[in-house]
């Protein structure tokens, strides 16, 4: 479990360190089962290509979940997420090999609000593309 961040110690403008998260075909199969989203494009290369995609792509929500993990790991166990939103700007293409793809997430503190709320802006990249834009979260810190 991560360290606990407190509202008082957070400074607006602070850059949060980048973290890299792996995603493989197995990740997507697990995510299909856990989420109930069995859209073919997330596990079937034949159909993904048939509908014009370069290969199997990650669920947008899998990518968002990695950004969510980034936020909760930074914020610590006593924090609560009150808002979380993203726009999916590029696909995370997941090749059928042992390596898969990676999603690199970084963040910045944008606001300190009343009620111990802290706003974050997030960035997520994969294979050089920005895969999330307008990604923001608000957390309540102790």
């Amino acid at each position, binding site marked *: *479990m991560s360290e606990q961040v407190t509202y008082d110690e957070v400074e607006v403008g602070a850059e949060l360190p980048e973290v890299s*998260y*792996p995603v493989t075909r197995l*990740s997507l199969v*697990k*995510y299909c*089962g*856990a*989420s*109930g*989203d069995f*859209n*073919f*494009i997330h596990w079937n290369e034949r*159909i993904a290509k048939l*509908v*014009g995609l370069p290969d199997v*792509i990650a*669920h*947008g*929500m*899998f990518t*968002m*979940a*990695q950004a*969510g*993990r980034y*936020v*909760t*790991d930074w914020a610590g*166990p*006593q924090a*609560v*997420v*009150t*808002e*979380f*939103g*993203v*726009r*999916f700007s590029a*696909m995370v293409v997941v090749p059928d090999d042992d390596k898969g793809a990676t999603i690199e997430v970084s963040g910045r503190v944008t606001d300190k609000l009343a009620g111990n709320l802290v706003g974050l802006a997030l960035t997520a990249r994969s294979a050089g593309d920005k895969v999330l834009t*307008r990604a923001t979260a608000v957390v309540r810190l102790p």
Partner: protein
Amino acid sequence: MAVNRDYAGRTFPVSEPYEVSRVKIAEFATAIGDPNPLYRDKAAAQAAGHPDVIAPPTFAIVISMASSAVAMGDPGLGLNYAMVVHGEQRFEYARPIVAGDVLTAQPTITEIRDAGRNVMLTTSTQIRTVEGELVCTAVGTLVERGVGQ
């Protein structure tokens, strides 16, 4: 087949109650690769002030998708699901989802609009306990990619 614009503004029925289990939360946390003990260990969750294990923030999509699948699969809507990708997603949380919650979801299609060859379909879903407490509002935009792209 084209997306039926008449569905904009339509509110769908409240979903069947969904009982959030510790096992399902742990399965979801494992699937996203997150080892956080708040999602598995009741004592750790209680030490952080929660009544039981909590769900990761994006777990709310499981509840909202189960309800909106009915709406998105409505043959009258005419959405071609193989051509659909996720455009945007936003959650506002009144509190975390906790194991033991019995939740319902009610989706409303708030907007259907064209963006070039694509069609953007936005749904707002209120997730409430069966007692009526609002837990989360999920707003999602799906993109049906146009033919020829």
